[in-house]
């Protein structure tokens, strides 16, 4: 290759590079993209909770992106397994990713608490569809998430009242046996349940069984010995299933009631026949009851999920809050934070979503009552706390 040829080649290469850069930057200018992070359990013992919620975010974003907006939204996933330790490990990475302007999550309260130390300094807003621990929004608590934390569900004090009422329903002279799983979610929920249980019946026993215990037979024996006719469990579905199996195998016919940690679509299959009749609560209204058949078909098409699970409604609402802010041109973390904290949004159920200073819903919301029947979880209606 002679000198002239080399010069020509260099000019052509430089031109091509410059042209490419211009085209790319023009394309970037045409369609911008921001990222929302879904954070919750996608694997692990509590994976069903996150797997049930995720389609709510996927569906909301698919509807928005299908309108060909100037700013597209990319959904990423952070799997913190409903485990505070895992959350503490992955939260710094999420916070460091400047493309992420908001977190849909976390699903569990322990995850939220351990994510705050990373998200607060980064100014990264969180809207949780299901983290219900009271401390997360309690101004007196050192582990609150002010100012970045928000949730579209009422907190555990409200659910606890309903859970105790549901556990006592149609039970003559309720004798409660109350068991928690020692987690950030389970223990405070049961502490609140006890306050109502004392008023509407008698607490004949309590226990605190670590999450992922294999053998619940001694607890079942204690329930029998105490003569309890209603058992309330505050924990997650894997252990809830083991517990109710041990209880039924011990011959106990006491009512078994549990909160939203157990209310996941895989609970009936984990518990088998022992799960029949289990009473559940959750601050949620099933998505399929709130939308039309056409919308439900669109949801199924977008997510491949036929029957929306628990907290699809709240995840959909949480995602739509971000979408409203993005539509309003809020594309930075600071912009999102001020928009979410000060805005007023419409929920899929028709109500207005507005947050108080510490991230809770103004005006509260009813808690849903559910029952396991025929191997599926059925919604019975809302109960006021």
């Amino acid at each position: 290759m002679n000198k002239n040829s080399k010069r020509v080649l260099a000019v052509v290469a430089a031109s091509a590079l410059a042209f490419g850069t211009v085209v790319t930057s023009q394309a970037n200018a045409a369609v911008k993209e921001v990222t929302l992070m879904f954070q919750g359990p996608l694997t692990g013992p509590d994976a069903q909770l996150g797997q049930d919620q995720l389609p709510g975010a996927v569906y909301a974003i698919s509807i928005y992106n299908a309108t060909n907006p100037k700013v597209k939204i990319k959904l990423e996933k952070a799997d913190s397994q409903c485990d505070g330790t895992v959350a503490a490990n992955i939260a710094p990475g999420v916070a460091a990713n400047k493309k992420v302007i908001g977190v849909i999550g976390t699903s569990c309260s322990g995850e939220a608490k351990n994510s705050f130390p990373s998200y607060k300094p980064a100014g990264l807003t969180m809207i949780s569809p299901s983290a219900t621990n009271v401390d997360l929004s309690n101004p007196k608590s050192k582990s609150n998430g002010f100012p970045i934390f928000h949730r579209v569900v009422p907190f555990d004090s409200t659910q606890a009242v309903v859970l105790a009422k549901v556990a006592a329903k149609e039970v003559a002279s309720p004798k409660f046996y109350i068991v928690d799983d020692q987690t950030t979610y389970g223990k405070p929920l049961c502490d609140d349940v006890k306050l109502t249980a004392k008023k509407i019946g008698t607490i004949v026993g309590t226990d605190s069984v670590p999450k992922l215990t294999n053998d619940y037979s001694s607890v079942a024996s204690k329930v029998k010995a105490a003569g309890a006719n209603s058992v309330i469990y505050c924990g997650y579905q894997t252990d809830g299933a083991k517990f109710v199996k041990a209880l039924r195998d011990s011959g106990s016919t006491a009512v078994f009631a549990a909160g939203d940690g157990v209310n996941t679509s895989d609970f009936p299959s984990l518990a088998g026949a022992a799960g029949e009749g289990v009473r559940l609560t959750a601050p949620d209204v099933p998505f399929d009851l709130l939308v039309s058949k056409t919308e439900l078909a669109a949801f199924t098409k977008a997510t491949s999920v036929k029957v929306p699970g628990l907290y699809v409604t709240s995840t959909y609402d949480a995602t739509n809050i971000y979408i409203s802010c993005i539509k309003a041109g809020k594309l930075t973390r600071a912009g999102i934070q001020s928009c979410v904290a000060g805005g007023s949004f419409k929920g899929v159920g028709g109500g207005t979503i507005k947050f108080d200073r510490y991230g809770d819903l103004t005006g509260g919301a009813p808690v849903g009552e559910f029952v396991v029947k025929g191997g599926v979880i059925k919604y019975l209606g809302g109960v006021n706390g």
Partner: protein
Amino acid sequence: MNFSVVTSEFWSLCLQGLALGLIYSLIALGYTMVYGVLRLINFANSEVFMIGTFAVLVVQVNLLHHDVTSQPIHGFALAKALILSLFGAMIVCALLAMLVELVAYRRLRLHGSSRLASLISAIGTSIFLSEGMRNLTNSRPQTTPRLLEKTSLGTIWGANLRIDTIITIVAAIIIFLALDQFVNRSRLGKAIRAVSMSEENSRLMGINLNKVITLTFAIGGLTTGAAAFFYATVYENTIFNVGFNLGIAAFTAAVLGGIGNIRGAFYGGIALGLLEQFASAVLGSQWKAVTVFIVLVLVLLVKPSGIFGEAVQQTRT
């Protein structure tokens, strides 16, 4: 403290503790057999147990086509399913234990590596198996089908004699007695005992060391596989880390009874199962682990070689 539960549910707690304790015993036999011969804590044994529980799941779900919604079965179909599950788990665990010995320990042993190297290899193998299963199952718990209806065979002193509990207790005792007799009376059993006393002298007496050690791992795998089957039958669930807690409990049982001592592992498991049940009933489940380990420390302070252990570190019966 709740002592009333002990008076009203004493025999129920005993039966449940015995069943759980015998599952610990069967896993503890796996630890103690290997320790007796190699002076090595085979930490991978807890993961051999975990794989055994998944083997039961595979036999029942993939081979016999039952699932969590299946109704319990009866008669010949039930006997076939239970026997296939039991032997499936035992064979898988025995083969896996032999493979672990071959891959993780043999080369180190033949090259005269330190016990520390073998210990690290044991931990590495344990992590490999556990994390491998985590990835295969996405860390999600699995439920084994209820093939055996948990009917009551009657009551004794107010305790419900549930069929799965009784099967576990009877079968585990039979397995232990068979192992005890095998180690005591058979030629291979004598060879195992000889190797546990002195590798060098055994070699000089013409004993094939590799064969005996492989056999020891296989026997440990068989008892651990049986434990996996009984666990899956009684508790009907498994997860990638199911072996962790049970493995620690079984190892504790082996140490409590005197590690390296077959009868020690057996009685240590029973003692631990009963202790856990009663501690949980009286003090609350949150104090179960604390109580167990306080008792373990106290026992070891008084008898450093465990309840049945002697100063001589060898497989005794």
